[in-house]
């Protein structure tokens, strides 16, 4: 097994005191980010990214990916204790997690949530370890048409699998592509869509968009809801942990199913949020205690948490091996790779072996460190959420502004952050998905480049996207995903008249 050897080399890279320290800092910061409203995995990483420019890429990605793991863990704390999902993917955790806390079983609920998160993440990391090198070596043979077809499939999946109306998803996504096009054309070097503005010469930076859309937008939504945090107290002692752990193996079937759902939804960029809902729904339908779901069933905590973590982690697989991120946070990490001078995609596995395997090894260690930290520090994290919103909100605004400024040391970006923030508030309220918008801003240039190169090869004929078996298959899957809502609608209509009334 070549992968095992590479992985061991990766552990050798990661196991230094300095990297372990970054891991602990990253997890703690990540949990705090996950607990606070307005700061989430994606914009937390976006804000801290400029600070890592001077670090070695391996240390930087360890710090940032650990923030991501921490944010995934943190969402569970607020869901269970406060009934407030700190992150969208922990909404499903509130259904049974908070009732458990109300029944005085907060410790059990938290232990179950953290342990399931860990199991889900571990499963996904094993999938990455085994599958990523294979996918990457396969993708090495891709030409421009195949590259474009992968982008096409990724974006069509948003349309087919999103909860939002397809036309809204397409509109938001295409707006992202339009924003990505502003500035210098990467193929010809010509300026476009700048309308004579100097500020727009370098285009819109997706980091600024992420900070505005997810950070400022979220604060505005929280403000509108007028949240007051009333939570349950919690402490976890070793006895509770031990008893919960003894109970967990009984739910191995739910766990395994949630892992598979999570990995599937993470690799195809549907993301952690639908994965957690789907996993909860299926667990509810198949469980013997299904009718008790919603009143504090431990299985109702295990299912969404496992799936959310498996999805969040496996979203890094296409990012590393194909250069197509599976989630907004993975997109921000991909932006980081570009800034550190690394080219994401299949070549990474050949040219930057130390980096890739160091990152994968850090995923194993980071999740173990994360589990220990969250189990021992829950009271501290819960205390942060008790700080009143009127103190937290301006501090988060200042942190977002500093984050937006440091992207290019430019105050115009802070203005753009505000614009994106207000836009994010309206888009969110009107049920437009933000993830495809952000991913389009990140991948716009690359998607366009591969599209134009393909057309150049074929001298303008669109037939190049169906010129061989591989590219036709991927494009075909993309088209199915794109028209999935329409197809399933049609199917339902065809069935209805046949049904006896």
């Amino acid at each position, binding site marked *: 097994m070549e992968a095992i050897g590479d992985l061991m080399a990766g552990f050798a890279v990661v196991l230094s005191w300095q990297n372990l320290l970054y891991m602990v800092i990253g997890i703690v910061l990540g949990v705090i980010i996950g607990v606070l409203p307005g700061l989430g995995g994606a914009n937390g990483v976006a804000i801290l990214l*400029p*600070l890592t420019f*001077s670090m070695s890429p391996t240390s930087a990605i360890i710090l940032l990916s650990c923030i991501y793991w921490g944010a995934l863990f943190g969402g569970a704390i607020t869901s269970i204790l406060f009934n407030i999902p700190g992150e969208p993917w922990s909404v499903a955790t509130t259904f049974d997690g908070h009732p458990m806390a109300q029944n005085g079983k907060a410790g059990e609920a938290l232990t179950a949530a953290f342990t399931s998160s860990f199991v889900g993440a571990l499963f996904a990391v094993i999938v990455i370890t085994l599958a990523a090198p294979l996918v990457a070596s396969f993708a090495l043979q891709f030409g421009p048409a195949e590259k474009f077809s992968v982008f096409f499939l990724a974006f069509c999946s948003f349309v087919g699998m999103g909860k939002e*109306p397809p*036309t*809204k998803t*397409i*509109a938001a996504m*295409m*707006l992202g*592509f*339009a924003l990505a*096009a502003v500035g210098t*054309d990467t*193929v*010809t070097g*010509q*300026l*476009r*869509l*700048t309308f004579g503005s100097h500020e727009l010469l370098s285009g819109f930076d997706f980091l600024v968009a992420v900070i505005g859309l997810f950070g*400022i937008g979220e*604060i*505005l939504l929280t*403000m*509108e809801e*007028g949240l007051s945090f009333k939570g349950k107290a919690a402490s976890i002692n070793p006895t509770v942990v031990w008893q919960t752990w003894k109970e967990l193996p009984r739910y191995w079937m739910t766990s395994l199913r949630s892992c598979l759902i999570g990995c599937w939804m993470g690799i195809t960029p549907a993301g952690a949020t639908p994965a957690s809902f789907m996993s909860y729904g299926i667990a509810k339908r198949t469980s013997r205690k299904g009718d008790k779901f919603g009143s504090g069933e431990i299985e109702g905590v295990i299912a969404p948490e496992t799936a959310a973590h498996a999805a969040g982690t496996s979203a890094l697989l296409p990012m590393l091996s194909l250069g197509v991120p599976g989630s907004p946070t993975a997109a921000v990490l991909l932006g980081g790779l570009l800034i550190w001078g690394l080219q994401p995609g299949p070549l990474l596995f050949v040219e930057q072996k130390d980096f890739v395997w160091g990152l994968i090894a850090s995923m194993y260690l980071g999740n173990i460190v994360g589990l220990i930290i969250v189990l021992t520090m829950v009271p501290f994290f819960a205390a942060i959420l008790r700080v*009143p919103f*009127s*103190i937290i*909100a*301006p*501090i988060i*605004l*200042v942190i977002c*502004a*500093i984050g937006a*400024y*440091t992207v290019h*040391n430019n*105050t115009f970006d*802070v*203005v753009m*952050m*505000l614009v994106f*923030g*207000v836009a994010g*508030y*309206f*888009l969110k*309220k*009107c049920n*437009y998905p933000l993830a495809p918008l952000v991913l389009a801003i990140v991948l716009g240039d690359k998607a*366009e480049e591969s*599209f*134009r*190169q393909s*057309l*150049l090869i074929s001298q*303008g004929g669109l037939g190049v996207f169906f010129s061989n078996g591989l590219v036709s298959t991927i494009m075909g899957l993309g088209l199915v995903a794109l028209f999935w809502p329409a197809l399933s609608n049609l199917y339902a209509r065809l069935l209805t008249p046949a049904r006896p009334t």
Partner: protein
Amino acid sequence: MSDSPDGPSNGPRQHLVEVGVAAAMALLGIIAIIGSLRVGTGWGAEGPKSGFFPFWIGLIVVVTSLYNMVRAYTHGSRKLFANWMQIAQVLKVVLPLTIYVGIIPWIGIYLASALLIAGFMRWIGRYGWPLTLAISIGLPVLTYFTFEMWFLVPLPKGPLEDMLGL
């Protein structure tokens, strides 16, 4: 509830806001199309010209947004988008933030941040001066040491920092 103009049962309707958002997106799509036409959307010496891709993207934005607009008007929810009190809450963040963003180039990010936090805590949180001053001065000082000293990332400064010789 009462029908007073600022009561909790009044406010803009969801479908009208959705029409507005879709119209704004269509406008951005039109801007993209105009910008693309300026640089050329056809076939040039190096393959498709710079405006080729954004032109079609802009066209899709316009078409889908017009559909969303009509759909929101005819089928959209007639519920409240938000009541006026909630909108006032949102403006309590948007207005100070706009001022904050506007004054950063003039007085630097440290002083502006201190003012934003202090204003927010006094105005919305109604905290006493001691806590307000401690946090509104403490955080920028902490930021200064973290960014300028530890990470060596300079942030925008103003006349106050010049006076202090920082």
